């Protein structure tokens, strides 16, 4: 079986470490430069890993949410030293609250896009491979949970097709509620059945080996070294204040300096690792093909 892209074909440990790092940094750093880097990286990764159509669709769905977050913050939060004007309620509208709203919108979008990449790359077999022997129950639950929503939707459609679609709004609503009830019952039973089935096959017994197609090759080792170096570099930069930024009461934080720019460059390299990996593989492939 050939994976769709070079990054998904890496060892699951590499994928897990990568997404842990990127999600941690995206959620913790409110520095505008870091947010911009993370957002750009997430967008590029979704484009490479899931394609332009999916990217367009998710952006279309995310933009209104982000916009709402950006607008809601200055409406309810009035902290900040730069008063622009006064809202009809009498509270001040401050520049800082607007900027914080924009930053949180950016962070929201970046994190959701990173999660979209995570679900695409970290398939349930990878979860079971990673945690199947250490924490069998949890990894089974995790893989079942991750599979739950698509499966639920699929089953919902199947059950819905068996019931009549005619009648007024009220009648159709009742049908939908019935379908929902049926599918909830089905999913509960299905979960129990899956667990029983796995148990009867001896899942999680001590000393039992599991089949896996993952092998830690030299490229994965190099990737791990690269991720470790990035984590070390970014972690120490974090402690030294490279990602410091304060929105309230006045905007203040790490400014542009050789050290901070270096720190951001490393972060940029980390965020674009999957993109570069895929791009390099594609280039090699094209080169090899052109030689034939």
């Amino acid at each position, binding site marked *: 079986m050939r994976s769709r892209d070079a990054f998904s074909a890496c060892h699951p440990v590499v994928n897990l470490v990568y997404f842990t790092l990127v999600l941690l940094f995206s959620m913790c750093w409110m520095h505008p430069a870091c947010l911009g880097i993370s957002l750009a990286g997430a967008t590029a990764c979704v484009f490479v890993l899931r394609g332009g159509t999916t990217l367009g669709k998710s952006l279309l769905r995310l933009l209104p949410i982000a916009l709402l977050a950006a607008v809601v913050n200055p409406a309810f939060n009035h*902290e900040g*030293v730069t008063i622009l004007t006064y809202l009809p*309620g*009498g*509270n001040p509208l401050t520049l800082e609250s607007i900027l914080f709203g924009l930053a949180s919108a950016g962070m929201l979008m970046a994190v959701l896009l990173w999660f979209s990449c995570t679900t695409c790359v970290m398939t349930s077999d990878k979860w079971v491979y990673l945690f199947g022997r250490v924490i069998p129950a949890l990894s089974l639950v995790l893989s079942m949970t991750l599979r739950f929503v698509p499966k639920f939707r699929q089953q919902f459609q199947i059950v819905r097709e068996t019931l009549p679609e005619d009648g007024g709004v009220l009648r159709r609503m009742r049908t939908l509620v019935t379908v929902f009830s049926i599918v909830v019952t089905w999913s509960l039973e299905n979960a129990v059945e899956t667990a029983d089935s796995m148990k009867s096959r001896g899942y999680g017994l001590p000393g039992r080996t599991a089949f896996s197609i993952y092998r830690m090759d030299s490229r994965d080792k190099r990737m791990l070294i690269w991720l470790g170096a990035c984590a070390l570099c970014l972690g120490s930069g974090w402690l030294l204040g490279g990602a410091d930024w304060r929105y*309230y*009461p006045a905007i203040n934080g790490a400014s542009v300096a050789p050290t901070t720019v270096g720190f951001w460059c490393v972060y940029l390299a980390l965020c674009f690792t999957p993109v570069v990996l895929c791009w390099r593989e594609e280039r090699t492939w094209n080169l090899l093909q052109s030689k034939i």
Partner: protein
Amino acid sequence: MTAMRWKTMIAALLTCLLVGGCGIQAPSEPAGNTCTISISCATILNKLDDLTQGKQALVPADGWLLEPTQVEFNEGESVFHILRRTCKQQMIHMEFEDTPIYNSAYIEGIGNLYEFDCGELSGWKYRVNGRFPNYGCSQYPVQSGDVIEWLYTCDLGADVGGGESQ
């Protein structure tokens, strides 16, 4: 036909704006009565270590966000009205939580110094003529010649002379 509709829409919009504009007009120009108002956060000065990080620069060296100032006001205005107008005039930041149904306003922060910024017992209290009314500032009608003091407390009022049962 379409031009007609556009005109109607624009007229309706203008009417809405006019009506809305009248609804939220600023308080009318005060005249006649005067009172004194001051805002002080002097209690923070010996507790600067407890203050939220990054807010140290907001505390003036002598603690006065607003030194005692004579302001004019209209008959029947409350302490809250006077504070809001004065802050707007003096370009002092002030955030409040308004509950119109109870005619209640709560002062959350003045000059970006908020409640809970200097320990969990901190916040803004007000005193009129040396006495803490112990009820909402929007309920206190100001008399001419009153001396209003807004004080930041770090200890539920005990450090500004207004403990629980003053």
